[in-house]
């Protein structure tokens, strides 16, 4: 009797596993079949700031379709547009965006919002960088050869950082003190925290960053540190499958008073991260 039961159980569990497999296969394949969505290519720093978690539910309610954000480095985000894998570009590197437009991959660029960069560093500030002048701060850091963690990953943040160094007359920064991590903002901050180094970061990532160790904000408020975001529809003439109506609706919402307000309403610890600045 016990034998029969054992055999029945083993047959049932095999059948059960097979059923689970098949169900999972079907679920996984149909799960994403809804056509009512657009794909937005954006950056890791924007994703990590938590903006999309706050913004997208409101947008979905207003527009009636899903907005799927793939967050990668700016370089890869624009590359996605060139390949036609995204419907909308939402990045923060004006030079690269205008090149994208010039190449014919985008339709029109709208300035939507800005956030700012800050320089963080060890709270005892060995290089004396503290203040509101980013160029002066970088000069002092280089002079002291204080450890500096950089992203070095073709991102918008990285491009901005390299521009500031250039303004400071140090192009490119070289030496053991300057460490390029080749990774996103979070991992770079992890490295900076571990090394007690300076780093340039967007305020948003910093505010959400939990692993600060001894780092604090040292340089902020310099106008040069403002980081402009632009949004573009990927050109349907180049990629016919781009969802141009929904994509444009999303852009229109972002620049509308409702969208601009939603952007401003996003706070971390009571602090506003993104400042809407669309001007028609």
């Amino acid at each position: 009797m016990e034998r029969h039961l054992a055999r029945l159980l083993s047959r049932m569990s095999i059948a059960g596993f097979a059923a689970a497999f098949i169900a999972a296969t079907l679920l996984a394949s149909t799960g994403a079949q809804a056509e009512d969505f657009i794909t937005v290519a954006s950056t890791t720093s924007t994703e990590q700031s938590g903006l999309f978690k706050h913004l997208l539910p409101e947008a979905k309610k207003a527009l009636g379709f899903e907005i799927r954000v793939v967050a990668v480095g700016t370089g890869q985000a624009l590359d996605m547009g060139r390949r036609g894998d995204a419907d909308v570009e939402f990045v923060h590197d004006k030079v690269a965006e205008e090149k994208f437009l010039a190449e014919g991959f985008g339709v029109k660029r709208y300035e939507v919002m800005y956030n700012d960069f800050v320089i963080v560093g060890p709270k005892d500030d060995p290089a004396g960088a503290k203040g509101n002048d980013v160029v002066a701060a970088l000069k002092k850091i280089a002079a002291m050869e204080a450890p500096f963690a950089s992203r070095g990953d073709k991102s918008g943040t990285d491009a901005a950082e390299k521009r500031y160094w250039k303004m400071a007359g140090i192009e490119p920064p070289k030496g053991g003190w300057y460490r390029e991590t080749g990774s996103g903002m979070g991992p770079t901050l992890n490295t900076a925290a571990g090394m007690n180094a300076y780093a340039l970061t967007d305020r948003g990532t910093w505010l959400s960053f939990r692993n600060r160790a001894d780092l604090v904000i040292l340089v902020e408020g310099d106008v040069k540190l403002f980081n402009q975001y632009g949004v573009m529809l990927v050109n349907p003439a180049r990629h016919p499958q781009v969802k141009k109506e929904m994509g444009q609706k999303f852009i229109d919402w972002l620049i509308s008073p409702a969208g601009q307000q939603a952007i401003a309403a996003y706070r971390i610890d009571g602090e506003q991260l993104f400042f809407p600045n669309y001007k028609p």
Partner: protein
Amino acid sequence: MHDILASITLAARLIAGGDAELWRIVVLSLEVSLASAFFACAIGLPLGTLIAVGDFPARRAVVVMMNALLGLPSVVVGLVVYLLLSRAGPLGSMGILFTPTAIVIAQTLLVLPVVAALSRQFAEDAWGEYREQLTSLGVSPARAVPTLLWDLRLTLFTVVLAGFGRGASEVGAVMIVGGNIDGVTRVMTTSIALETSKGDLPLALGLGIILLTIVLVLNALAFAIREWSARHG
């Protein structure tokens, strides 16, 4: 130490609280990993067994290549699948990029060599034992494949579990072809990667503990099965 304690507490709270987003991520992870294990095994188990019993000119080269594929770098697979599924690529019009289906494809490609190589090894050992008797009974090597698959079912089930574990642990390729889209293609591993890079280590560790628990449970299951089979022939 504080981080680890904090993470365990956080994990317990997330699980006990039935956090909706957490469970959605877990369920999606299980779905894609089960699906890819299913496809990888449906192809890999018979394929590995067939190669084990087969006798054809290039056999040794095939076995060497199969074992070499075990070391296939997963990000390379991710890149290749991405290029294939991208709109600019040959299969772009299917619109699968950045969907769970893309993840299943990438994971299947990674798990398949594991399943095939392991099943080949087990089947070859068994074939050495069975071959004379089966041949004597009139069983051709090809006909022996389903016989071996059933006879080795308990051992091969541990191969299935290993394949599932391999799929469930994958992060690089899943990130590339899935895009880690919140609510759509965000699985446990890519979530952990994201939270870690945000510096939100307690949450990442919490997710990691859940993932580890799943893997441990599977291994315990595999062990129990082996014990049961040893006792019951």
